[in-house]
């Protein structure tokens, strides 16, 4: 079936999964691993950058809707 490539590009971006932040319980003890303090490795792939741009515009759009 012939589907518009823009539809595919937009839906396959996976913004919904990217915006959901997972909160993990941090260990507060002295000996607990401090993994969360490590800087996250950010991907610099064009696809990821595009995802960021779309998410940013979408956020602005939602703010516009909310007033």
């Amino acid at each position: 079936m012939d589907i518009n490539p823009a539809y595919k590009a937009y839906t396959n971006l996976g913004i919904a999964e990217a915006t959901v932040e997972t909160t993990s319980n941090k260990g507060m003890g002295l000996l607990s691993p401090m993994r969360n303090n490590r800087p996250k490795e950010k991907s610099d792939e064009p696809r990821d950058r595009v995802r960021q741009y779309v998410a940013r515009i979408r956020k602005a759009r939602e703010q516009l809707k909310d007033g």
Partner: protein
Amino acid sequence: MAKLPSEILDYPIPGQGMTAEVGSRPWQNPPQYTTVEQALEFYIPRLVSDDVYESLLDSMELGIPLTVMADSMQSTAVMQGLHTIDVGILAMPVIIEMLAYIGDDAGIEYNLGMDKPIDEDKISDTKIALAIKRMREKLPEELDKRDDVTEEPEPMEEDVPQPSGLMARRV
């Protein structure tokens, strides 16, 4: 052997109109914008420029899906040699989102183009009606005959009270 007129030899070769020297088309040359960011820097100011903005809103009002608009924009840019098709595909989601932003900002109800694609297995009523119409055109007599034949209902047998005497005749 008859000598061919010289004009025939000057005719274009079949398919010549669809060919061109390599590199003579814009998309056969190195693109002007090589990254997504460069392409977006070209698109976004154009989308909000006065001459494009009004026509965009008109198109949204007409119900043209934003995905179709974004796709045609990037296809045109590829044909003009502004960027490659892969950069265009990458830039499309941002263009769609930007168009949606413009639509929201102007308070227009737009079609994002994300509706469920039409189920091809389901035959629409229009197609069925069209098929019946074609059948009628092809076989008018047979269908008319069938329409004329009306089944007559069989008469119901009435319950006639049977004589119950000893000498009564049984039917």
